[in-house]
């Protein structure tokens, strides 16, 4: 490495030592590797080259920085930002340019300490360091507060040099609600039935908790009508046509919702009744179209038809799945594993009666797929219970089947996870006898049991280790025999079970909630479509409006969720859950909402 001026380094470090002593100490001791080279531009000024990528203009670094700073200043002013979060420090030319043009708060986010060391070694940055804040975290924690209304300003050469890591950071930052980025209207479209129906609700609620204006389009209301198509007694071909007509009707309904509500993002869950044509029309209406395909892509192929009209596809499988999507669509593909909702999937203080009702040594919650029917025979001599549907014909399992083989609701499942000593979790397969030796994705049950504080033994999955650590957070098995042996082993070791379960729950709460997933999902979208979505405007949250009020209204607002959008719809919706006499503040909001409904709704649309 060249370009070290010990005088500048000492002076710069002195400023840093005053403001960020921990960072200064770290930097002082840091040796910059050869991947980071300070060279001279044609103009003679130093520039930084990281892994062959120049972070400044090779001819005139000031000119490049000026152009960037002008563009960012315009964005910041248009957005009415209080803070700029500059991702990428380089040698700081662009930050100097921004400081000259814009008077707001500047936070520089640079996870690569070598870049910072290079910068303070190569240039006199004392004035810059006096005015900026520096964050070196690798990840946006999602709880970045105190930046006020902030806009993320990525430094493109830095992102080019650092690749995926920094690009993802930009997305995560942009989707962090505390940064007061764009609050998006997101329409979550559920399927009529199936596992992803519940997930749609969790997603909508997570998006809301992230401060976005999320609305769930709950298609399950049509499930009864869809099922009742059978009363026509149609033959197979005619029934197929009727089913398609019905699905098309629902898709048109979703389109009407998009027309009326104008969401920025439409998030379709797997099996959501949308058609390619309707997705295309949603695109024409300006909505970003995303799908979270929470299924095994090998089992279904309807996604092939929809994918060309999607902008983003999120899947719970990696590699092969991504390739399959890329082969038929230009949509951005991203891996997004399942999760749990801690508000629903949580430890319960069960009564003795509930423990009796829902508890057993071993239990399984789920549908009766082929491999499960065969594998669970291994527990025939145990205190074993099966909760779930589609077990018809599995005679050997009949003694263990609970509630007549009805589909269990979430509340029951959560009680079972809590009450069971060893939860068995065997991923489904229609063609294996027991464990799928090449199983990849991780099912929601894995995260749900963990979030409940339940202990589980789960079959080995390729994608599991980075999510939950086998042996430390969950116990894995590779065969039915191993499942039984491990089950019985841990049944006799309650302390070990408790330890593992506690660690698994901690891991889920820290990394695998729907809130995390939705943050990541929007991060991906915003990393590419930020400008388009930000231009759709942004409302305020209760938290942001709170400083403007005092007295009784202030107290009223303190009772609302801080990240609730400060809109009449959202405030009044929160009142519907209350009981007892209305306060004046509540009644006035109700009045304003009725006024809005009566006179303004049509005007607004």
């Amino acid at each position: 490495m060249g370009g070290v001026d010990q005088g500048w380094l000492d002076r710069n470090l002195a400023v840093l030592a005053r403001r960020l002593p921990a960072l200064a100490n770290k930097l002082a001791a840091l040796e910059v590797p050869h991947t980071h080279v300070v060279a001279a531009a044609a103009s003679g000024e130093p520039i930084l080259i990281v892994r062959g990528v120049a972070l400044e203009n090779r001819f005139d670094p000031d000119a490049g920085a000026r152009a960037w700073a002008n563009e960012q200043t315009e964005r910041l002013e248009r957005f009415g930002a209080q803070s700029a979060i500059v991702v990428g420090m380089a040698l700081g030319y662009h930050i100097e340019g921004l400081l000259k043009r814009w008077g707001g708060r500047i936070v520089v986010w640079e996870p690569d300490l070598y870049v910072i060391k290079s910068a303070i070694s190569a240039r006199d940055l004392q004035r810059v360091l006096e005015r900026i804040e520096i964050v070196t975290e690798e990840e946006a924690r999602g709880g970045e507060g105190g930046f006020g209304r902030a806009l993320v300003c990525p430094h493109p050469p830095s992102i080019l040099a650092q690749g995926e890591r920094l690009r993802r950071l930009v997305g995560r930052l942009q989707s962090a609600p505390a940064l007061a980025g764009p609050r998006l209207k997101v329409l979550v479209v559920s399927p009529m039935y199936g596992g992803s129906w519940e997930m749609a609700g969790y997603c909508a609620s997570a998006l809301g908790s992230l401060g976005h204006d999320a609305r769930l389009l709950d298609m399950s209301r049509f499930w009864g009508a869809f099922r009742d198509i059978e009363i026509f007694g149609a033959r197979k071909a005619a029934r197929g046509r009727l089913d398609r007509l019905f699905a098309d009707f629902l898709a048109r309904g979703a389109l009407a919702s998009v027309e009326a509500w104008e969401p920025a993002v439409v998030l379709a869950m797997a099996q959501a009744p949308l058609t390619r044509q309707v997705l295309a029309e949603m695109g024409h209406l300006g909505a970003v179209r995303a799908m979270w395909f929470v299924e095994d892509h090998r089992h279904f192929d309807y996604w092939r038809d929809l994918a060309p009209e999607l902008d983003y596809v999120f899947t719970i499988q990696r590699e092969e799945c991504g390739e399959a999507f890329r082969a038929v669509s230009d949509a951005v593909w991203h891996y997004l594993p399942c999760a749990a909702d801690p508000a629903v999937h949580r430890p319960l203080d069960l009564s003795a009666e509930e423990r009796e009702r829902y508890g057993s040594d071993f239990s399984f919650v789920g549908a009766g797929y082929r491999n499960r029917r065969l594998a669970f025979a291994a527990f025939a001599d145990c205190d074993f219970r099966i909760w779930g549907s589609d077990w018809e014909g599995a005679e050997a399992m009949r003694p263990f089947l609970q509630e007549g083989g009805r589909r269990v609701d979430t509340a029951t499942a959560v009680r079972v996870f809590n009450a069971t000593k060893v939860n068995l979790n065997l991923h489904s397969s229609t063609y294996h006898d027991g464990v799928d030796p090449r199983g990849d994705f991780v099912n929601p049950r894995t995260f749900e049991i963990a979030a409940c504080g339940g202990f589980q033994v789960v079959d080995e999955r390729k994608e599991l280790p980075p999510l939950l650590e086998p042996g430390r957070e969950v116990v894995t098995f590779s065969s039915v025999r191993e499942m039984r042996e491990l089950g019985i082993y841990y049944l006799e070791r309650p302390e070990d079970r408790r330890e593992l379960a506690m660690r698994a729950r901690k891991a889920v709460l820290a990394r695998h909630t729907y809130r995390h997933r939705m943050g990541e999902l929007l991060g991906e979208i915003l990393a590419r479509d930020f400008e388009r979505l930000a231009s759709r405007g942004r409302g305020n949250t209760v938290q942001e409006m709170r400083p403007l009020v005092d007295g009784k209204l202030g107290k009223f607002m303190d009772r609302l969720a801080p990240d609730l959008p400060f809109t009449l719809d959202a405030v009044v919706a929160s009142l519907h859950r209350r009981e007892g006499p209305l306060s004046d503040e509540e009644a006035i909001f109700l009045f304003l909402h009725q006024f809005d409904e009566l006179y303004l709704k049509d005007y607004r649309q």
Partner: protein
Amino acid sequence: MSRVAEKILIVNLTRFGDLLQTSPVIEGLKRSRPGCEITLLAEKSFAEVCEGIPALDRIYRIDLDTLGAELLEGGAKLLDGFNYVRRVIDDLRSEGFSLGLNYSSSKMTAVFMGLLRIGDLRGWTMTEDGFRIIAHPWSRLFASMCLNRRFAVYNLVDYYLRMADIQPWGGGLYYRISDEARAGARRVLREAGWREGEKLVAIQLGASRSARCWPQRSFVELGREISASLGMRVVLIGGRLDRELAARTHLELGGVALNLCGATSIAELGGVLEQCEALITGDTGPMHMAVAMKTPVIALFFGPASAFDTGPYSEGNVVLQSEVACAPCDHNVNCLRPFCREEITAAMVARALRLRLEGRFDDLAREASRWRSVRVFRTTFDRQGFYRCELLGDRPAREEDVVREAYRRMWVAELDGEGELQGAARRLDRSIGSAEAKKKAGGCLWGFGQMVSLAQEGYAQACLLAGEAAKRDPSVLRCEELGERIEAIDNEIAKIAGIVPATAPLWQMFRFGKENLEGEELEPLARATSCLYAELARRASAMARLLGEEKRQFATWTQSGAEERRTGRGREEREAQEWL
């Protein structure tokens, strides 16, 4: 020591015409509650008209336009809107009103009224915990009739009056214009080409909705006809939005017409109408202004406008309403073929105008007999002071005419004292002609009979529920079972109301009554519910009798229901068992 004046608040956030229709209640309150102080809360943009309402002590203007703009902007402006409403509420609370009358039937005003915490609130309001109620039986009746307009019984003004416990007296509407406004009106007329002494007929061109507007070519034909047959000039009036229509009409009529559209203030409009021999108009604000100025009105009612609901509230006006089966239509429909407007021709209107101006109502009735496509009404007041529309000419009564007449008798008897019912039935026979009435309304009798039976059953179940709830250790299962039966009966009653629309107003009143039930305790709730069933049974049986049903013996029921209402509790269980 001086007595503190009774303070009354009237809330009316509707338009110009509706505010004028509030004038009789203000007049009536001053008469019935001497010394009272009346404040009228009106929307700022329509409040100008209130300045001319005599007897009004104070106008409180609420600025909904600015509030709307603030809500649309959101964020900090939403807080501004909140603070504005709080100031309004604080202002009004500090007045210490003892009576509040809400004449704007909307959820919005219901919440508003609930916020005011006035002891005696009538009309749409809200319970402490946020549920809408409609306080006062006449207000509930008005709300019921809005949903069943074919059987609309009374004029809006009469509902307003009865909600304030004022007996209608047929005094019309009230508006006072200043000398200055009067002079301004004459000046505007002169500037438009009017010569003093020249007789004028005003024509109001527009209406709030296009379905209520007469086609422009008809106005042109009418203007020419008036000029040719009566030798009078026409004055085109209307609001800002009618200017283009007025300009075109003026162009076609030439010297026959004076165009005053958008040229006057509200008060000057009153002055202009005062100068005119008559006003030809749809169901509009100027129609009510003409009534207040004692200028005869020839009203053309199209689309959803109903002569019975909002016709010109004074003696001797003429209303022409299309005879088409779908008229009047519902307020919420958007008619794509409003051919009802074509049924009334310019020649008919000109003829009606002439006969009205000459006071020849008998001749008008003869003419009306020939106009098969139009029903012609003369406005008048009945012996009790209620507004009524008298159908002119030899025209067959429709089923709804008969039912309306029966309701007219029944509601007054029910809401103002039940002793009148027997006499009311006799009067109905005389007024409609019993043979025809029975024939016309025959189809409805089944529905009313069914409603009586169901209401009796509901009464019995509610009494049993009250009895169970009153026990020291009531059975939850039994209470649930009875509750389910009551719910099933309510569903059946709703079905009857759907099958026989003539019964729907009764069901609607019953529903509103149920909505108004308050409290958490099961026993009093069940007793109050039993009273509602008793009320429904009594009303349905009265309707059946009024419409000609003689075989069923409802008298006993009526009597026992009344007793039940008076005593609150008593023979419930025994009666319940008998009916079951």
